[in-house]
């Protein structure tokens, strides 16, 4: 039988080993729980996306790769990604089509109003200009208490009819569009923004950077070139 002295010299190492094992196990479980499972859109959901008349898309409709983003205009990671996405769009040209869907979070005070502003600009044919402007100016309007005058001034910068813009921002049509985007996101299991689908396959959050996105687009292009 081991002496009490021997037990005493072993015991701290047993405790340390147990804590190490427990930490690694819990860490792995947390990682598995937090990792967003890859989602593939069903055929029905894909068709529904393309059939919607009011979908905001940039790039050729025949592009081999379609990138669909669910974004929140007040979300800083979405803002950071917006600039990179514009560069990617320029570089891939006709090979890439980008679709934007609104997914405003309630935790962001002005996100819904920003989505309405983009949609109202869209009714005058300037959705993407407002989209780019809102992301570019995110740091400024996010901190403002009353965003309406700022959004109206943005509309002015884009040369929109301001009376119509203000009316459209509070119209049912605009609200329904934002609602419908959000419903689509929820149906696809979107929980975070930005959430990106490339050719109907979700991109994991760890790949939401320019290098990984380009790699995912390249892979989708290769897949299109060499179908099974």
């Amino acid at each position, binding site marked *: 039988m081991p002496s009490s002295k021997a037990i*005493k010299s072993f015991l*701290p190492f047993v405790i340390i080993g147990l804590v190490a094992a427990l*930490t690694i196990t819990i860490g792995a479980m*947390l990682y598995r729980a937090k*990792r967003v499972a890859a989602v593939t859109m069903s055929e029905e959901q894909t068709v529904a996306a393309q059939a919607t008349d009011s979908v905001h898309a940039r790039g050729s409709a025949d592009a081999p790769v379609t990138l669909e983003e669910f974004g929140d205009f007040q979300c800083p990671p979405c803002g950071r990604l917006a600039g990179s996405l514009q560069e990617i769009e320029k570089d891939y040209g006709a090979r890439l089509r980008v679709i934007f869907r609104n997914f405003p979070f309630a*935790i962001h005070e002005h996100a819904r109003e920003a989505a309405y502003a983009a949609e109202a600009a869209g009714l005058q044919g300037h959705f993407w200009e407002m989209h780019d402007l809102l992301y570019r100016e995110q740091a400024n309007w996010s901190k403002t208490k009353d965003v309406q005058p700022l959004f109206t001034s943005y509309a002015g910068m884009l040369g929109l009819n301001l009376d119509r813009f203000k009316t459209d921002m509070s119209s049912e049509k605009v609200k329904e569009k934002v609602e419908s985007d959000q419903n689509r996101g929820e149906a696809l299991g979107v929980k975070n*923004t930005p959430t990106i689908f490339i050719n109907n396959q979700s991109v994991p959050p760890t790949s939401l950077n320019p290098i990984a996105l380009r790699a995912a687009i390249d892979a989708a292009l290769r897949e299109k070139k060499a179908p099974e």
Partner: protein
Amino acid sequence: MRSKRATFAPAAVASRSQIVIYSLLGLISLAGLADATYLTAQSLSGETMVCGGSPDCFKVLGSPYAHLGRIPLALVGAIAYFSVFSFAILAAFGYAKVRRFLLITVWSMFAVTLWLLYTQAFILHAFCRYCLFSAAMVFLLAGLIVASRPP
């Protein structure tokens, strides 16, 4: 010739007050370890790069200051807390030689914590509650280290 093992053995029985302090150091480092493990899982899963999961944290943990290259700073923190826990347990069982490592680790963590608090306050202008909890744990560890100094 003395073996290497013999040199790393309980040298003397720690005093009762020292055992209490080392046990407290162990408990506090466990709390810090839990916090850092959570943040590491969050960072590795990509949750800090998106909005929706942890609204208070993505600003801080999604920033470049939260990584050392590709390694999340939270992982480095978890290793540091685990080291403090290990040294505290060993010290409580009379391994007096680890006290020096305990001091070095805690004071290094203290210095890094001050830098991180400065970064959150003056560079990022955002505070992450998990990071503040970790800072509180490090301050407690440093306080206990000061208290455990032999007269």
